[in-house]
């Protein structure tokens, strides 16, 4: 009896230094071992389990109940405070206010909270709530409400940013449906980071590993270096690892519902050219080759085309002046090639990144915009250098890049909303620097300066600065990000 009491006391002592929820979860294996070793009986083990379960049930963690199909669930998100200066200058030939600056200073916040997880049988899901109704922003401006008094909640609503379901049951394949994180490898030259496209995506990825050659042979045991002081042989050092190459090959396809037509068949006579839903289709194949010592190169050539017409973006793009169409997606057949090369310099991550895009249908896009013969304005590219990374406390990173877009190259509804104010026909430089105050707290500074690429055209697109053409542009942002 004394031995049993001592055993129970020992078990309780062992569990005393771990969390209650952890004790209840980890107890099973230890108790099974103690039973197998005949230290305690099955009945004694059950009594200990019951006590631990009762303790776990009394904790906040123990009161959580998840539905049976959920295998794993993760709560995540981030909050950000931002100061922003954004300004744009009119053209020198503006009839009313030449060379005049329109400037905004804003204090802003954003909140994103999500749940993602896995269900039984290789299904997964995700939902994320976000501030702001914009497709390219999650920011809300302090004092930005226009009614219901100061500090009202008019623009402080929460919206569904992501809601998707997926399946990973086929080896190497991921199928996703819904409003999802962008499944394509891309850059802000084409896609603003805040956009969550809606529709279907199919992703395939396979990794090949190649062992090329071997390292240096092991030192023979009879060599001078192989003997200890007392003359006995020591273990020879192992042979060097073979040279390994890792090749990740991937293919991503997407069918995004860009614009829903409502209705396709209205009351009355059937339209001669009925509208249909507008789809954006993406076809991407790519590869990432990783060498030893963290050297890699990645390419992801992609083709984007549009099918259908919709009823919101089916007016031809013009892009000149504020009062002409800035959002039409006609005649866009865009080839895009994002590239990245990375390596380490004395443990400091470095990378060169770039993106090149061309619209194969720019001739027609320019003609319909009232600029026949200007199809040469079909290119967009960026090139930059990044040093460092932001993964842990006291990490830092700095990136600088040059960006150039031409009037008929890209879809103006998707390009980054901060660098060059959601516009095309702009070029300039951008710099971003970050420092990790803690593992999950990042301070960022962003600055960009740009100007109109070609003075013969407007700066197509709809941004925060109500000027077209945007002859010069500057933005500065200071962000404090907290991730959880």
């Amino acid at each position: 009896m004394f031995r049993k009491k001592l055993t129970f006391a020992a078990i309780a002592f062992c569990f005393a230094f771990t969390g209650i929820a952890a004790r209840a979860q980890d107890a099973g294996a230890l108790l099974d071992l103690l039973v197998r070793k005949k230290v305690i009986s099955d009945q004694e083990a059950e009594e200990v389990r019951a006590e631990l379960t009762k303790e776990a049930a009394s904790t906040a963690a123990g009161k959580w109940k998840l539905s049976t199909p959920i295998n794993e669930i993760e709560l995540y998100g981030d909050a950000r405070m931002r100061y922003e200066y954004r300004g744009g200058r009119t053209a020198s030939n503006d009839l009313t206010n030449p060379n005049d600056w329109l400037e905004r200073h804003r204090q802003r916040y954003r909140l994103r909270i999500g749940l993602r997880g896995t269900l039984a049988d290789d299904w997964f899901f995700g939902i994320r709530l976000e501030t702001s109704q914009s497709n390219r922003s999650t920011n809300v401006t302090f004092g930005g409400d226009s009614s219901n008094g100061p500090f009202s909640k008019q623009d402080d609503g929460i919206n569904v940013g992501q809601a998707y379901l997926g399946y990973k049951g086929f080896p190497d394949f991921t199928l996703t449906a819904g409003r999802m994180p962008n499944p394509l490898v891309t850059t802000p030259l084409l896609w603003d980071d805040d956009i969550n496209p809606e529709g279907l995506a199919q992703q395939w990825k396979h990794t090949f590993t190649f062992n090329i050659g071997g390292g240096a042979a092991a030192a023979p045991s009879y060599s001078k270096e192989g003997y200890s002081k007392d003359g006995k042989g020591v273990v020879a050092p192992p042979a060097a690892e073979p040279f390994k190459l890792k090749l990740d090959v991937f293919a991503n396809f997407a069918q995004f519902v860009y614009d829903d037509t409502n209705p396709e068949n209205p009351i009355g006579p059937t339209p001669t050219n009925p509208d249909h839903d507008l789809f954006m289709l993406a076809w991407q194949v790519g590869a990432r080759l990783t060498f030893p010592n963290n050297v890699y190169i990645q390419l992801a050539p992609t083709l984007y085309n549009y099918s259908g017409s919709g009823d919101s973006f089916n007016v031809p793009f013009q892009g000149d002046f504020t009062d002409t169409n800035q959002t039409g997606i006609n005649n866009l057949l865009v080839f895009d090639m994002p590239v990245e090369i990375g390596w380490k310099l004395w443990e400091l991550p470095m990378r060169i990144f770039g993106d090149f895009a061309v619209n194969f249908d720019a001739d027609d896009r320019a003609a319909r915009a009232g600029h026949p013969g200007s199809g040469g304005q079909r290119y967009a590219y960026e090139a930059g250098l990044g040093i460092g990374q932001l993964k842990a406390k006291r990490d830092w990173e700095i990136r600088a890049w040059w960006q150039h877009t031409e009037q008929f190259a890209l879809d103006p509804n998707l390009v980054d909303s901060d660098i060059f104010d959601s516009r095309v026909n702009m070029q300039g430089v951008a710099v971003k620097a970050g420092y990790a105050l803690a593992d999950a707290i990042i301070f960022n500074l962003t600055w960009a300066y740009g100007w109109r690429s070609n003075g013969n055209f407007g700066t197509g697109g709809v941004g925060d600065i109500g000027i077209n053409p945007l002859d010069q542009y500057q933005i500065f942002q200071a962000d404090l990000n907290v991730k959880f």
Partner: protein
Amino acid sequence: MKIKYLAVGCALVAATMSSANADRLVIKGSDTLGAKLVPQLAEQFKAQHSGTTFDIAAEGSTTGIAAIIDGTAEIGMSSRRAKTSEVGAAAAKGKHMKPTIVAYDGIAVIVNSANPIKGLTKKQVEQIFTGDVTDWSAVGGSGGKISIYTRNTSSGTYSDFKELAMKERDYAGGSQKMAGNEQIAAEVGKNPNGVGYVGMAYTKAGGVKVMPIDGVTPSIKTVQGHTYSYWRPTFYYTNGEPSGLAKEFLDFTIGPGGQKIVAQVGFVPIK
């Protein structure tokens, strides 16, 4: 005088009622325990304790645990451990779920006697019951669409098998849910392509045979030694330490007389 008679009458009625309650034991819960074992234990106990009556309802382990929580039974039979949520619900009502192991059991995987299969691995069992494999030919049989028979969701055996044999994965969509062990055994015995699981005490049904799992067949030796993969303890749950008739019946169950009945019915004694 009338008041005196009234008082005596009330006292007699109260005494009669309490006496009736003291001799009546309500037991609810597991079909695995309650279909055969506990009724036989009750019969033997009644023979030794005249005037005792039992009220036994075997509708699944979940009902037994719930009965302890809501106070509608003195003993809750269960073939699984109480969940954290159930223990929490009990604590919220001031109840303490105390488990007592009364027998061991091995969950036997049974197939129709005409099935030529000689045994299954643990992986194959998981594949069959999750629906990864749908034809007997994939596991060495002669071909035919597998018909799966399982318990329903209130069953402790349903939960135990999911944990022990299926890594908590979901049962196959086409699996047919049965109310008890005997029903599963009956259906598998009639269906040449049938497969199901039952407690060891129900493996003697006609038309079925027990599958060795990784070469180990459920028996007293392999279950007591914990070498059979799907062994499990079965419990009486009480609200704290049992007392009165519940304690007497529990002591009888785990004593020599009760354990003899345990072995006779087909379960594995605790010693």
